[in-house]
Structure formats: C-alpha cells, structure tokens
C-alpha cells in the first residue's frame, strides 16, 4: 500500500465523517434531550442545501469568505425554523406513545420536501464557483480539492464549539441535566420549555450546515439527503441512541470502513456498513455508547 492511497483513505474517511456527523450529532442530541427520534432530519438537511443555494445565487464574483459566511446564514435560518417547530408541533406529542412522534416527524419530513418542491421545483441546482476558486492541493501525488479540507475543518470546529457549549457553559450543564433526568431537572427548577426549542434548533442547525456544505460538490436535488440520512440512522443506532460520543465514534468508524471498503471490496461497500452495525448491535444491543433502555 503506497502513501498516496493511505492519504486518500485518510481524507476520504474524514470527508465522509464530516458529512455524517453533521446529521448524526443532531439526531443524537435531539433524542438524548427531547427523547424524540426526528425522522425529519434528512428533510432539514435538504432544506439547508436549498436555502444556501438560494443565497448563493445572489452573489457572483465575490471573495470566497462571503460564500463561507452564507453557509452559516443559511444554517441559522433553518435552525430558526427548527426553533419554531419544537413548541408548535413536537411539544404536543411528548406524552403520547412513541409511534405518534415517529408519525409526526415523518409527516413533517414529507411536508418539508413538498414545500421545497413547491418553491424550488424538481430541477437540479448547482454552484461551482466557490469550489473552483479554492483550487486543489497535491498531497503525496494525490490531488485533493481544498474545499474538502475546508468542509472537514468547519465541521470539526463546530464539534469543538459544541463540546464547549455542552461541557463548559451553564446552559450546557442545564441541557445535560435535562438529558439525564427530565423529571429531576424540572423539579430543580430548570425551565425545559425554553431549553427544548434551543436544543432542537441546535440539532437542526448542525444538519442544515451539512446540507449547505454539500452544495459545492453535489447537485442539489430533492434526493440529496436520502442516502446519508439512511446511513446516519444506522450510525445513531450503532453508536447508541442519544449518545454524542457514540455518534462521533460511529461516524468515524463508518467513514473509515466505507473509504477502505470502496478501495478494496467495492462489491460490498454498502453491505459492509450494515454488517458492522449487525455485529456491534449483537454484542452491545444499546449501541457502542448507549446508556438508554430500549424505549419500545
């Protein structure tokens, strides 16, 4: 195995990890705190991509930093939509059996995708300027687009910020308390009614960022989120529902297995991920870092 291949596998692992983690971290955060498995996550990912590409269309021939800022603006817009969804829709089903949550979030995903179809249509959108502007790097004979490095760095930076928010701030302490024991948190006077929309918005912001970051290297169509969200749900189960550590570990493992698998066993690329999931769940039924009882 030469160095070029090793470097390819290393960066391909990180790139796929950064795409996956933007979805899985939000899924786990929302499940961990709100107790809801958000089936609309993939739709928010798609919405992030569409909002960002619309913002992109207003700018041509601007410095790359402007495009970079637009990723954040688009994700914040989608995050705010998420903040509105929690009190208006999700709050009504917390006390109902789990299937109502699944039905609600699944319907929400259909509604969001249909709204996208209504406003943006079904034809693909694309933006290439930003990607081309940044150029390529050559690392040990392997050409790697600089944009990928920026996307990876952005997601890792966001993860670090999330870590500080959750573990070094007061609001993070409250979120962790609510996630560990909701009743106890309420009885200690933590106002979960203000906490929940924030957490949901944070999860949605992260996944919208994943969608927005896909713009430069992907065609934006309604199906953009379908493959990655399917894998993201598998990872969330593998890592342990509600566990942030599990989401990170799971995304890294899957990113690596895929990068390696495509190289050496392209025939079974997708199957490898599910075989891995099967093995992990047979040994640890609650996932790698799961601490929750099975809810259903």
């Amino acid at each position, binding site marked *: 195995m030469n160095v070029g291949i090793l470097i390819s596998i290393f960066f391909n692992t990180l790139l*796929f990890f950064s795409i996956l983690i933007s979805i899985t971290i939000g899924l786990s955060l929302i499940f961990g705190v709100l107790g809801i498995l958000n089936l609309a996550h993939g739709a928010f990912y798609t919405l992030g991509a569409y909002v960002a590409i619309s913002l992109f269309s207003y700018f041509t021939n601007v410095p790359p930093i402007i495009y970079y800022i637009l990723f954040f603006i688009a994700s914040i817009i989608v995050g705010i939509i998420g903040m509105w969804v929690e009190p208006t829709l999700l709050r009504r089903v917390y006390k109902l059996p789990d299937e109502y949550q699944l039905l609600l979030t699944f319907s929400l995903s259909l509604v969001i*995708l249909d709204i996208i179809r209504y406003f943006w249509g079904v*034809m693909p959108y694309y933006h290439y300027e930003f990607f081309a502007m940044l150029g390529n790097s050559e690392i040990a004979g392997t*050409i790697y687009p600089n944009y990928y490095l920026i996307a990876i760095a952005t997601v890792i930076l966001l993860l670090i910020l999330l870590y500080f928010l959750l573990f070094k701030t007061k609001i993070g302490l409250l979120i962790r308390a609510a996630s560990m024991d909701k009743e106890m948190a309420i009885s200690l006077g933590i106002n979960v009614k203000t906490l929940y929309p924030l957490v949901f918005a944070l999860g949605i912001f992260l996944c919208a960022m994943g969608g927005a970051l896909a713009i430069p290297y*992907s*065609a934006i169509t309604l199906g953009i989120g379908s493959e990655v969200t399917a894998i993201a749900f598998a990872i969330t189960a593998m890592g342990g529902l509600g566990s942030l550590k599990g989401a990170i570990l799971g995304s890294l493992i899957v990113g690596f297995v895929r990068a390696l698998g*495509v190289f050496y066993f392209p025939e079974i*690329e997708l199957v490898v991920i599910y075989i891995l999931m099967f093995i992990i769940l047979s040994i640890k039924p609650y996932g790698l870092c799961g601490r929750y009882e099975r809810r259903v």
Partner: protein
Amino acid sequence: MNEKEKINRRDYLKYTGAAIGGLVVGGALGYLLKPKEIIEKTATVTLPGVERTVTVTAPGIASTVTVPQTVTVTTEKPKKGIPSTPLKIGLTAFLSGAAALEGKHVEAAAELLIEEINAAGGILGRKVELLKVDEAIGADALIKAVRKLVTEDKVEFLVGLISSGNGTALAPVIEKELQVPTVYGTATTRKLFEEVIPKPKFVFRASNYDPMECIAAAKIVFKYFHPEVKKIAGINPDYAFGRDEWEVFSKALMKLKPDVEIVYEGWAPLGTTDFTPHISAILARKPDLVFTSFFAGDLITLVKQAGPMGLFKATKVVASVGGSAYSDFKKEFFPEGVLMGTRQCFFNYPPKFPPMEDYVKKYYARTKRYPIYTGMGTWHGIMAFKTAIELGYELLGEWPDVDTIVKLMEHMSMITPVGYRFIRPDHQTVGYQIYGITKHVPEYDFVVLDPMYIYPPEEIAPPVGVKTLDWIASW
C-alpha cells in the same frame, strides 16, 4: 246470401269514401309528421367588405352568424360507435422526489401534445383528458393506483412510466388483468420483454432500451473513442439498472476486444452525496476507460467531484445516459472529451429536421429546457395510440376495440421529432442511438456533442426474439 250479409250500393260508396278519406288524412298527417330530410346545400355568398351577417334558416332552425370573408361549414357524417365521453389517458411518472427531474419532462411532453390534440378537435372528436399518478409511491401502491385508473376512472390508455422496477412489476398486471393498451415511455430494462412478458399483447415500449446504448458505447469505444483500451473501470448505480448496464457494456466490449481487463467495479446508491472514495479508488488503479450509467442529478454530482480530482485528465470517460438532463450539464463543471449517450434524443439531432426543430422550439418555450428521451417516449406512445384509433376507424368505420388498437400499434412506423421510429412486433420501439463527444461551444451554456456517433438499431439492438447476452455471445 242473406239480407244482412248483402252490402248495398250506398254502404259500399260510404265505406269506400271513408277509406279514401282516411288514406288522404293519414298520408297528409304522415307527410307532416315525417322527420325532416337533411338536404345538403352549398351556398357561396360573395359580397364586398370584410364581415357579413348571414342568416341560415331551415324549418325549425334559425341561426345568425357573423363570418369573416369566407367560411366553410361542413356537417359531419354521423360517427358510428364513437363514445360521447372524453377519452381518458393515464400518465404514470415520477412527480415527486429526486427522479421528478425526469418525470417533469414526461409530464411536460404529455401535456404539450394533449393540448395540441385537443386544440385540433381531439381524437375523432373526443377530447382527451390526462389523469396522473406519481410513480414515487412504489410498485405496490402504483399497481393499486393504476388498477383504480382503469377500473374506476375508465382510463382507456396508459403512458409514461420511467422506472424499470415499476415497469416490470406492472407489466404482468396489465397483460393478465387490466388489458388496456400501454406504452412505457422509458422503463428501459431488457428484462421486460426478454423475461417478464416475452409475449406481450398490451404493453409496448417507445424508448430505445438499455442494451442499445451499452452495445453502441462498446462499439464506439472499440472503433473510434479508444481502440487501444486495455483496462476498464465502472462506477454505476447500485440497483438492477446499473448492474445491467455494466454487464452488457463490459461483456460487449470484451467480446469485441478480448484482452480488455476489468480493474474496478464500483457501486453507489442513487442519491449518493460523496463519490470521492470511488474516484480515489479508480485513480489508484489507473484504468484507460471509465464507464458510468449514473444519470441526471447523480451524474452531475459525480462529474463535479471527479473533475477537480483529475479523473478526466487521467482517463477517458463514457456516460451512457447523459441524455437524462443534458441541458443541465453546464460548461463550468462538465468537461469536454466525455463520450456521452443520449438515447434517441438530443436537441440538435437530426439536424435541420423540421419536426424536431418545431418541437424543440415549442418545448423550450414551455419548459426552458430541451426535450429528453423520457418525454419523447411518452410523446411517441400517445401518438401511436391516436394513430391506431384513427386508422382503425378509417378501416372499420367504427371506434376500434382494444384488440384492434394493439394490433395496429404492433408494426407501426411513425415520423416523430426524433426521426423515423418503428415499433417491432415484439413491442420494442427502435430507432437510432445518439452518442457524441462533449464539447464547449460559445452558443450554449451546457456541453454539446461534437462529433456525434449515430448508430442504426440493426447494429445495436438484439434481433427480435434473441436475448441480449445470447446475441453478444454469438458475435
């Protein structure tokens, strides 16, 4: 003869008189009550000026029309057996989800044609109505929806259909149960007529099908594009269509050039966001040629990621179904030098062919896109059905039954915007296959094909009754 039986002269005269009177009264009444005979009269009124008011009167009818200079009014002969209800056509296509990109073309082509047919008076005077079903609901739900279209909504013809999976699931139901003339606009799997319904009666397909583009690609690579090819790699969609395309292309190429070796076979699902591991893996194996049957949005994503990583500089690339969204393949990311197939439809072929020139103009005005093969297949399907009905009526003097319609469609040749196309007795439509090398020209913001390689169906479609792989093996 006794007195009573005797009829005297007075009585005789009385009865005879009454009989004659009765006849006269009856005759007069009969004359008055008999239906008005329709008398055809042609009147030419020539008067100075532009408009005239002409009053047409007949017993019981009087109408006044204002006519410009000349007007011809023809009273049509009564038509036999033509239903007075509108003619309903069921359209199945992806109307939601990522594949709606192709479905939109099917919808636009059908609506455009039906508007034209209705503006010209419909099919034998019957207005045509379009009822749509979304293919994205999945094969099982689609079968139920189509069953409802036929049994409850009384649809008389089905057209459209994009997915091969839906097409193969629906075909036996149409053949055995619903028995309604059906033309698939796409659903191009070879297995439809080779395995699923080898003796079709009601189901037709108006598009070129998969083996044609794969065999044409192999022949063009071997002859013109890269005769020295030794090592090939494939990156294809991970479902039946992608697997079929790769199998037929690689087998055909290896038959033509037995020293060709496969160095990489990659599969990725539809909607893949990240192709980079595949691109790295292909680059590491240094093939001379890469074949892909990804289409529409996925092909855009693949090309956007492969370009910067240097794939198009390192190797030659064949995209067999680039025709799926070619006017979206913008010059800024789609490179020159790719061998791209567009099935039977590309906006500037056949060159200077009036039906195509007219069609492209109308289509572009409506959709701001250029027509693609999915829509052309649907166009051909509706026209074949319309022609069969009109022919049947001309021959039989009445609205033809289903058996007659499908029999008439079975050998039908037709002038379509994409050239002269022929429905074979096995219900597969054949015509030329377009390939070309992508090129950037100043007139268009997307890649065009120059030079073009046009293959006639005789060289790339397996003969009637012969299975694709058997045909390739027999070369």
